[in-house]
């Protein structure tokens, strides 16, 4: 599904991603762990198409096409979704109407009709119940005044409504309480199937205990320094990054 080849990225002439190679197959759940500042969010942003990064080298293929030339909205329309480490507040726009605009934009891009508003709202309500979200969540301004955990839940809420092919979760677990973490992980696990892929960025074992990744990569200074399966998480938890760097 996603293939990153020899990618080098810098910001203000400082190299952040350094000759990175990474492949995520269809149906796979891949976790990336790495110390603060190692370039995990930068990688997510570059995959999603954020401007302001200097791509020095390399290619990113999504289902066979090089996406580096595409605008962020085109990548989104092709099924790339990023759950932000720091979701953004937009005052004056109701959460549900933002989501509907997003869904309709993508449908338009793919030559589909607008959503039926009633069905959309029904689905919103069902899902928010499933995720234990208060009903007021839909009508409140997008992320505005949401608590840290609420913002994270909202990212998963959007994701499950938008049904993307590649879900990048950038520290979705930070700020979530224990119950919320379970509900969110549950939602993500249920969503995951043989047709979509997950890229999970996290600092903690707990999320991965729930989601059970197929592959785990340890990231440092913009590249993968160690790869393995779920057992790598345990080693890391016990010994810390010192063991690997």
């Amino acid at each position, binding site marked *: 599904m996603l293939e990153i080849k020899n990618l080098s990225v810098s910001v203000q002439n400082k190299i952040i991603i350094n000759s990175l190679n990474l492949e995520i197959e269809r149906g796979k759940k891949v976790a990336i762990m790495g110390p603060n500042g190692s370039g995990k969010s930068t990688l997510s*942003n570059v995959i999603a198409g954020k401007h302001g990064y200097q791509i020095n080298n390399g290619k990113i293929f999504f289902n066979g096409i090089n996406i580096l030339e595409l605008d962020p909205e085109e990548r*989104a329309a092709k099924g790339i979704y990023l759950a*932000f480490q720091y979701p953004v507040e*937009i005052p*004056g726009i109701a959460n549900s109407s*933002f989501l509907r605009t997003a869904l309709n934009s993508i449908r338009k891009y793919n030559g589909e009709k607008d959503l039926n508003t009633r069905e959309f709202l029904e689905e919103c309500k069902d899902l928010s119940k499933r995720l234990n979200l208060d009903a007021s969540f839909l009508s409140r301004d997008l992320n505005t005044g949401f608590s840290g955990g609420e913002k994270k839940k909202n990212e998963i809420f*959007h994701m499950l409504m938008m049904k993307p092919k590649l879900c990048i979760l950038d520290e979705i677990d930070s700020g979530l309480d224990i119950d919320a973490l379970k509900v969110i992980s549950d939602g993500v696990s249920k969503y995951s199937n043989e047709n979509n892929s997950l890229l999970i960025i996290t600092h903690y074992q707990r999320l991965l205990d729930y989601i059970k990744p197929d592959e785990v990569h340890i990231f440092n200074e913009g590249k993968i320094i160690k790869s393995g399966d779920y057992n790598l998480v345990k080693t890391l938890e016990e010994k810390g990054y010192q063991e690997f760097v």
Partner: protein
Amino acid sequence: MTTSETAKIVEEASEYKYGFTTDIEQEFAPKGLNVDIVKFISKKKNEPQWLLNWRLNAFDMWKKRKYEMPKWANLKYDNINFQDIHYFAAPKSDEEKPKSLDEIDPELLRAYNKLGIPLKEQEFLAGIKNSHKVAIDAVFDSVSVATTFKDELNKLGIIFCSFSEAVQNHPDLVKKYLGSVVPTNDNFFSNLNSAVFSDGSFVYIPPNVKCPMELSTYFRINAANTGQFERTLIIADRGSYVSYLEGCTAPMRDENQLHAAVVELVALEDAEIKYSTVQNWYPGDKNGNGGIYNFVTKRGTCLGDNSKISWTQVETGSAVTWKYPSVILKGNNSKGEFYSVALSNNMQQADTGTKMIHLGKNTSSRIVSKGISAGKGQQTYRGLVSVLPNASNAKNFTQCDSLLIGNDCGAHTVPYINVRNELSDVAHEATTSKISEEQLFYCRQRGINEEDATALIVNGFCREVLKNLPMEFAVEAKKLLELSLEGAVG
């Protein structure tokens, strides 16, 4: 269709949508301004002597101003040659005024249909649920061409007609209130308007009547080199209520056109007037050629106790906007409100705001101003809150927010506060923000392209104001904001 034709259509669609001209026979007064022109206008309208005298007196005062336009606003524009303007233009077919809608020149009807204003007695925007009736008065250049729903309003004793008709049929009301809120020589443009005003709307709501539909006027400048000087007067008698909407468009022309209106509102005891404007005069092209010079004096008096006047405006058009809808809070416990969205894109300039003059006890006012600047647009909020010695317990709250799109535009805030009663409470908050890269990226990551994302964020920014508009107007205003923002990003 050839490629160039297609390209042209696409180009036209993305630019000022209302910029067509209508090819109908027009009757003009000769260019220029002198006593004879003032007399000509008055004669055309078959006005009584007292009104002619009123105009002549105004003209006398205006002459003394020696073409000295006000200079204090944060606006740059060419001097206007007041002798190079037609002060009166009327569709010829109007010579014998149509008695019913069927008699209106079909070209005119077509012109209004193109604007999306059906001059038929039908539900406004039939496609929208809960759409309610809107009575419309349409003003084409200098004359009013049609007023709808007259009979239904007549039954309630509501008077809604063109200003000229009111002069003929309700002279006592006109005489009593004309100039009572905006004195003739209040300012350069109100002074000019008082001498040469053409037409406009007149509304009278009798005591204890709640007007059952929105009353609306559409203004259209069609003729070239013509100024539009409309005059609107709305009187809400004791315990009455009215909501009034005003919309306006003009064709695209290379030269600047002058629009200098005066609007006066009078709310008697326990009465409420809600006045909404969507101003979409032609803004000129990207390089600042052409466009309307919009110098407007709008003011309301809360004359009676417990009365309320509320202005809501969405200003997206005009090359230059100079406009301060104000409220004089004379009655005790009276309330004034000003909700404004003003957008300046490309070379547009707006200097707009309000004045809240607290005279009575327990009076309160609320100001919410949202200014959006894009391109090379310049935007100034200018507001005065004045609490006079007798206005004990007066309250004002002002919220004044500016949003910048791009790096070449500007936003300025000039609040004047003048408090002469210690038992009053005046609060002012102001913010300036930019649409952040983070916000845009967030929207785009969700599939919303940059232009739509900008419109979305701007709509969110304006929501507090837009929600005050009647539903149909709010929909129109949103679309207008989107249209006006085109080309602001990327």
